[in-house]
């Protein structure tokens, strides 16, 4: 980088042409947006942070560029720099050209002419990007008014209705007068997209547009983005950390690391033929929902470099298993990969890497751990947790002084399952399906609960006094979602780990010994015990959280979204650790996660919840491999897979609407309002769905399956709650992206 910045003015005159040649993407005249040598520096408490170090790309109309990287890799800063939205303290240099006009260096006022007009952006958090005090209509019309002062009121309103209809909001005319809080998260993100495309932008930047949303809603929003792009013909920059999300959408991919692009190229080049170890690691670190075979994930050790310091070698070298001395001798430039026109990688070893090199070997993924319980049939293991008909209903009241009960929210409505020793049981479902409430009910362990919780033979119905409770606490521990919030910032690691042990009444010496053991167990340095949590990285903090949970030797660990707050590469390390601990210590897990790929990777059994009820439960490979309930099928089809081929040809079920409010839950089958099978059923059968509640019944193997399985063994471990599992799917809800459709003008 230093050589680039020191290039004198005489040299830089000749640079653009040369760069284009190297970029090999297109001539400048075709590109809607072309970014050259973009640098962004921030001043911070500790010195100058060089957040973006030389980003180049060209974007054609109607094409999609995916920028992929971990947090802190500079992808969001890049997008903000293009939009001119960085704070004044940031130093931005380089060139950003929109249709040949330079944007960098323009005043804020001049930029306003482009922002929302030719350049538009969709932000990550739909909850905070709309102003709560204005109606949605006002906010869309505002975007129109600013750039079209001459437009009449009627025309603007008509356009707003048109836009809302385009992003798939039902009865758009009435919804125009609704306030943001009347919309769900997915709907708000649609409104954001509507505002962004209001003035037919040439470039649409989407910064993690679906990260805050549920999978089914994510599928909807991605679909809307796709439509929006087709309608406006805009070029899209899609920024994400999820390799699955961009696989089906993007034409080109840019992988960023430590503020620099380390690999760029077409989608297929990057996914099937990665030439940079970091890309390989990223791809190997993501568990896949469509793969049943169990392999360990590829962990990338260490942390991204500190951008305060000028890297002296390849910035990935400290974490790269292939790093050698030449790697540390200078930062490798982004150079073309032989055999492909657009594919470029910043690695001196890129030629020896390729499709035939396996990331598993490169990163030395650990062997798959085997638990002593794995060989034992499930029926012979003892149960560590049993739930019998757990219910949690919240009364909904109205009125300030005299509270009238106007309804009941059935957060959890009659759930039963059991977890055996050495088993990982997962609960999946959208937010609002009652997963977390189920966990809280288990952790509560109170006598007055509706339903029975049995933990390690201790029932909440029998003596739930202090002694039983503390005995139960020793059997059951919890790991939280957010590793930062779960550790008291004023405690050292020693104090954090000592707390449960002191509580169990251990003496000082024993506590000290146990803490050293625990630190080693979770792969942390034992002499780090005197540090505060904020001196660790996210992955290390989660390891401390796991160590705390394991301190009292519990039989069952409850994991509440244990990896969702972590970066992909770190996530793999934590998942591998959990897998290993389960095998070594014979632990059982109760995992709650919204990421079905993680669930498939780690669990043995899974329950799918919808509106407080289990709709399908069973062995993970059976449920994911052969889902029977339409909701499970929809969930699975909504998950993006990091494989462009699969993504493009896959049939997706896009569910209509959001999770209904538990207040007006349907009488019969909860899922009927969104069910793709229900929509296609004849009215006579629909009646049955609406009036009767389907019970959870075991799968009856079909004739063919029965003849295939020679011996009539025990019935498969899979139960589901649906009357018509084999019904036709409603065609309106099926979406297939073939390649031709994808590149529509």
């Amino acid at each position: 980088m230093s050589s680039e910045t020191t290039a004198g003015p005489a040299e830089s005159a000749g640079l653009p042409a040369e760069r284009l040649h190297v970029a090999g993407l297109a001539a400048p005249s075709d590109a809607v947006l072309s970014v050259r040598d973009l640098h962004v520096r921030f001043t911070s408490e500790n010195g100058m942070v060089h957040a973006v170090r030389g980003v180049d790309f060209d974007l054609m109309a109607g094409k999609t560029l995916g920028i992929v990287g971990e947090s802190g890799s500079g992808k969001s800063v890049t997008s903000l720099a293009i939009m001119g939205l960085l704070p004044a303290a940031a130093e931005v240099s380089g060139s950003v050209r929109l249709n040949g006009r330079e944007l960098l260096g323009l005043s804020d006022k001049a930029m306003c002419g482009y922002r929302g007009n030719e350049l538009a952006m969709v932000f990550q958090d739909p909850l905070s990007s709309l102003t709560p005090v204005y109606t949605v209509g006002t906010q869309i019309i505002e975007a129109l008014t600013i750039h079209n002062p001459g437009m009449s009121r009627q025309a603007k309103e008509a356009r707003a209705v048109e836009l809302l209809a385009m992003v798939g909001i039902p009865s758009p005319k009435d919804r125009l007068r609704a306030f943001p809080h009347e919309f769900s998260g997915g709907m708000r993100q649609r409104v954001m997209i509507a505002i962004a495309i209001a003035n037919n932008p040439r470039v649409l930047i989407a910064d993690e547009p679906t990260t805050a949303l549920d999978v089914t809603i994510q599928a909807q929003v991605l679909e809307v983005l796709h439509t929006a792009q087709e309608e406006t013909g805009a070029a899209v920059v899609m920024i994400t950390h999820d390799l699955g999300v961009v696989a089906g959408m993007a034409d080109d991919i840019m992988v960023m690391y430590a503020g620099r692009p380390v690999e760029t190229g077409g989608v297929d080049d990057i996914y099937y033929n990665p030439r940079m170890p970091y890309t390989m690691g990223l791809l190997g670190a993501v568990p896949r929902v469509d793969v049943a075979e169990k392999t360990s994930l590829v962990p990338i050790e260490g942390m991204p470099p500190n951008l305060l310091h000028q890297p002296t070698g390849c910035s990935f070298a400290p974490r790269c298993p292939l790093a050698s001395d030449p790697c540390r001798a200078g930062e490798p430039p982004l150079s073309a990969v032989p055999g492909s026109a657009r594919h470029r990688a910043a690695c001196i070893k890129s030629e020896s890497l390729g499709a035939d090199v396996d990331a598993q070997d490169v990163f030395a993924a650990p062997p798959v751990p085997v638990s002593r319980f794995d060989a034992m049939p499930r029926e012979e293991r003892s149960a560590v947790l049993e739930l019998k008909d757990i219910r949690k209903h919240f009364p909904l009241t109205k009125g300030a002084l005299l509270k009238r009960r106007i309804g009941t929210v059935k957060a959890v409505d009659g759930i039963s399952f059991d977890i055996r020793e050495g088993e990982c049981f997962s609960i999946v479902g959208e937010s609002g399906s009652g997963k977390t409430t189920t966990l809280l009910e288990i952790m509560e362990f109170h006598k007055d609960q509706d339903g029975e919780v049995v933990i390690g033979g201790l029932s909440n119905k029998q003596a739930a006094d202090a002694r039983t409770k503390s005995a139960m606490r020793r059997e059951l521990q919890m790991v939280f979602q957010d590793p930062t919030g779960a550790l008291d910032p004023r405690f050292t690691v020693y104090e954090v780990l000592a707390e449960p042990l002191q509580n169990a009444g251990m003496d000082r010496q024993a506590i000290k010994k146990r803490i050293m053991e625990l630190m080693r167990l979770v792969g942390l340095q034992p002499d780090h015990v005197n540090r505060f949590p904020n001196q660790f990285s996210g992955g290390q903090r989660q390891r401390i959280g796991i160590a705390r949970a394991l301190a009292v030797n519990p039989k069952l660990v409850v994991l509440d979204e244990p990896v969702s707050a972590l970066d992909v590469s770190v996530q793999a390390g934590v998942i591998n650790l959990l897998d290993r601990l389960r095998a070594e210590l014979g632990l059982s897990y109760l995992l709650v996660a919204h990421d079905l790929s993680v669930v498939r990777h780690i669990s043995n059994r899974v329950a799918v919840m919808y509106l407080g009820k289990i709709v399908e439960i069973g062995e993970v490979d059976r449920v994911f491999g052969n889902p029977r309930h339409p909701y499970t099928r929809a969930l699975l089809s909504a998950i993006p897979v990091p494989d462009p081929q699969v993504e493009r040809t896959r049939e997706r079920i896009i569910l209509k609407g959001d999770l209904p409010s538990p207040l007006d839950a349907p009488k019969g089958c909860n899922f009927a309002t969104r069910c793709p099978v229900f929509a296609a059923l004849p009215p006579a059968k629909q009646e049955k769905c609406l009036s009767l509640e389907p019970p959870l019944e075991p799968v009856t193997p079909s004739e063919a399956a029965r003849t295939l399985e020679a011996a009539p063994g025990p019935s498969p471990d899979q139960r589901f709650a649906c009357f018509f599992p084999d019904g036709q799917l409603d065609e309106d809800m099926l979406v297939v992206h073939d390649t031709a459709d994808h590149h529509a003008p």
Partner: protein
Amino acid sequence: MTNLNAVDPAAAAQDAHLEGADVVIGKSTIIFRRFMRNKTAVAGLAIFLALTLFSFVGGYFTPWDKETIDPFNIGMPPSAEHYLGTSQAGIDLYAMTVEGTRISILIGLVVGLVSVLIAAVYGCTMAYFGGKVDKLMLFVLEALIMMPALLVVAVATSGGGAGLKQDLPSWLLLIIVLLVFSWMGTARLIRSLSMSLMQRDFVKAAQYMGVPPRRIIWRHLVPNIGSLLVLDITRGVTAAILAEVAFSFIGIGIKLPDVSLGVLIGGATSQVQTFPWMFWVPLTVMFLLTGSLAMMNDGLRDAFDPSSSSSGKARKKRARNNGTDQSLVQKKAS
């Protein structure tokens, strides 16, 4: 991660970096440094400490005390014998000021510290238990806020508190009354802060580990609102001193023969023209006292606030260094 038990080299490198860059500084050290960087606050602290010292040892520099009447010097201006002059009754003003400052500081410190302590425990308890406990305690709190403090003070220190007055010196009585009426605002603030802390996972984690409520409040809640407590103590001390002065000024606080700054100021208001020193000396001391506390408070707030600009200096210096580093690198490269 072939072997999880082994310590990975990247983490080790990270350690070296951490230690090298002095990142492992205790939080108290950081706060102390930031406080010391604020010159005004340090000056405030110095003035406050000097005044405290003066109030304890100042009495040794004069043969007079607050009760002895000098019949030869009645209402005299400052002189060599009476450093600050004497009152209408012939009592040495210097001796009275020393005594008054001590009483004022005593009242301020005791009320400031104890009321914040009560507020912390009360507020945290409310937040921790919630529900009915919270409602009941909040009712008590609101009732106290609505009680006319002025009247109660007047009654307690004058007529109604006759029985009490015989057993207790008037300053102790005032401390008690001030304590009863000074903690509610802080308690409410602490309640709302702790309620947000209660939502944090580390409190839940402690609950799920079976840690008893008393320990959770004391070990997790109180330390995490510590910075607020320190700020509230200095603020509370100022408020208590001012309340004492105000009450004594209108004649319902400290009663003679006890003296305080308020009593001195109150007694001298009618004679500003004839005996100006009787008015200005205690007033100046009071300003110094409350002013120094206000200066300290400002510095403390900056020191505790992570987003404050009090690290600006260090940043600018480093940034400049970095800049030179970069230009060096660039020179080398070219």
